[in-house]
């Protein structure tokens, strides 16, 4: 109760203290959770050309790997390549947890960068099924060092496929959320391998420590009555609330206006919004757990040695996997795997290595890095935000609001992203 009171007081004070920063920033959605769900209203995004010259790359990174029949559709790592017909800088982009190469955010970033004269290659997140099946050497995602090595190999293969067709003036990296942490590690690896010699590396809404950020997302789950074990009850209840709202509001269709009305009418409480974010995160995680389990035949959620056919029902695996937390995955699947590889490895060591802090010397000293994040990004604690501020100093751009990635497509944010990667003088 005290906490709640404190929270209310802080909320009341907040608008005043950030007022100065706030004035010129036009992203409208104040709440952190709400911004993360709603993103950017269409009229506040820049205008883009209707079509882009695009080619899908399919990379065969492990020609000898036998893929289980349930993943019959996976024919290699899919990357989306968007090109200029003149010499231009190239940006590799990696999305957040579970994102494919065509996630909405990646498409928006690609449009903005292409419009500004970049070649772009988007890659699936190492936590997406596509990557786990076709590009991960262990098929067990979540280790930044290993995932970065897999990503780097994929980038090399992608570059090999396109280098005959385009002229490139420099290589650059960009990632959001989990993808931001990953590209930081990719950049570091490339300093040794000297393949791309990345000129600019931009991190958008990165976690400082994966473990800590995921813990914060898992905590959102606790705002569901009964916690994560009662997520089914919660989802069904939210759904009927949603239907009712639509029905009594005389809406024509479920579109952006309708979703915006849900926000302005405050259909879902703060706690319920938190629960919905946590559920969507769990659905992504469930996909990752299932894919890793099938690829390694570990008997975690699918019986060991069971060969799933493409017609088999996966529904029970879906429900089981969404009911498992990140901690279950970490303790029962992830950590045991790495302990087997490196005897003597403690949990704390493994946790510590999944953090920007483990490469902070490099991040601090290298001028190529830039950071975009938000004051109210819920995956960061106050301490972590201060840490990022101090680590990146003038290379950090911290917006007063936007939640976790909610303002990514806002015109000012995209303009900053482009300007940073173009290495233009940036007016703060």
């Amino acid at each position, binding site marked *: 109760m005290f906490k709640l009171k404190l929270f209310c007081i802080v909320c009341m004070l907040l608008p005043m203290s950030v007022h100065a920063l706030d004035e010129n920033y036009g992203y409208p959605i104040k709440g952190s959770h709400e911004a993360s769900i709603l993103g950017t209203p269409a009229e506040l995004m820049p205008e883009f050309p*209707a*079509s882009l010259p695009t080619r899908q790359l399919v990379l065969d990174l492990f020609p000898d790997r036998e893929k*289980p*029949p*349930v*993943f*019959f*559709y996976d024919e290699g790592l899919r990357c989306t390549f968007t090109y200029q017909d003149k010499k231009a800088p190239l940006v590799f982009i990696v999305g957040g947890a*579970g*994102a*494919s190469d*065509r996630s909405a955010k990646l498409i928006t970033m690609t449009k903005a960068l292409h419009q500004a004269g970049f070649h772009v290659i988007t890659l699936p*997140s190492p936590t*997406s*099924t*596509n990557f786990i099946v076709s590009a991960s050497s262990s098929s067990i995602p979540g280790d930044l060092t290993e995932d970065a090595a897999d990503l780097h190999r994929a980038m090399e293969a992608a570059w090999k496929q396109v280098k005959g067709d385009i002229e490139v003036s420099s290589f650059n990296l960009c990632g959001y959320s989990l993808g931001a942490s990953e590209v930081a590690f990719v950049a570091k690896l490339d300093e040794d391998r000297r393949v791309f010699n990345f000129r600019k590396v931009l991190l958008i809404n990165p976690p400082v420590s994966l473990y800590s950020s995921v813990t914060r997302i898992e905590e959102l789950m606790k705002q569901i009555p009964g916690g994560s*074990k009662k997520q*089914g*009850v919660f*989802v*069904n*209840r939210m759904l*009927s609330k949603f*239907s*009712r709202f*639509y*029905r009594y509001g005389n809406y*024509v*269709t*479920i579109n952006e206006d309708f979703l915006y009305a849900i926000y302005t009418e405050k259909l879902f409480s703060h706690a319920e919004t938190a629960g919905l974010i946590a559920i969507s995160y769990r*659905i992504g995680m*469930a*996909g990752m757990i*299932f*894919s890793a389990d*099938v690829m390694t035949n570990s*008997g*975690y*959620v*699918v*019986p*060991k*040695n*069971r*060969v*799933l*056919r*493409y*017609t*088999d*029902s*996966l*529904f*029970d695996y879906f*429900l*089981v996997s969404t*009911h*498992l937390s990140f901690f*279950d995955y970490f303790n*029962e699947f992830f950590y045991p795997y790495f302990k087997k590889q490196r005897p003597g490895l403690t949990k704390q060591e493994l946790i510590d290595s999944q953090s920007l802090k483990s490469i902070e010397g490099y991040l601090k000293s290298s001028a190529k890095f830039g950071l975009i994040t938000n004051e109210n990004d819920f995956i960061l604690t106050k301490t972590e935000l201060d840490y990022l501020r101090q680590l990146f100093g003038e290379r950090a751009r911290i917006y007063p609001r936007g939640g976790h990635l909610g303002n990514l497509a806002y015109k000012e944010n995209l303009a900053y992203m482009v300007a940073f990667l173009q290495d233009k003088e940036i007016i703060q």
Partner: protein
Amino acid sequence: MRVFKQRSGLFILVLMLSLTGCATTGVNTEAEVPARHSISEFNDQRFAEVADPWEETNRRFYRFNFYFDKYLFLPVVNGYEYITPTFLQERISGFYNNLEELQNFTNSLFQLKGVEAASTLGRFVINSTVGLGGLFDPATSFGLERNNQDFGKTLGYWGASSGPYLVLPLFGPSSVRDAGGLAVDTAISYGVYSAIDPFACSDHSFAIGAGITTLGFIDTRHQQSFRYFESGNPFEYYLVRFFYHERRDIESGKRLPEE
């Protein structure tokens, strides 16, 4: 969801082959060991569940659509997008979207929604005349909003439940109710356009009709950004099923059970 006539025996052949393929892969002789976590340990309501007794067949069709897209449909759509200027693509979409107003209109009437029907009729008249046969959409800027309607929604509106989930070849996610609705809408459109027969005076009316139908089909796919198996999530089939089902239920305006 437009008139689409399948004339090709080849199509049926491809369909059959794709549905029977891969039946023998994945023989594993090692004994199964129960998984560490199973459904029995959780005591929660099931969620995202939709009646789907024919899941196996549906998954076959889902896969068929994936291959159909990959080897025929999307290459054709990409070719179309490559050779057609964006401005022309938008006009073509406008033309077909305008033809669909017929379906929106009849179904608004079936649901006795007078205002909506009048507004749809107004849209059709304005866009067909001022909008040059639907190429442009001035009606929206006059404040007449588009109301997408179909016979599946009409059935839903009058209380018919969706019935089991279906994945239709080429058309994708559907239900028993919506598949029936699609057939009715198709029949009505076909009947109306046959009665008007705008190309009757031409010697090539059949070829023109077939051309318009084919282009309409390409335009439909062009307007959809969905790609099978590209979500990055292995449970995509369920997520698509869930969102399709809920959206249809909500938009058909079916009465909701009390909480």
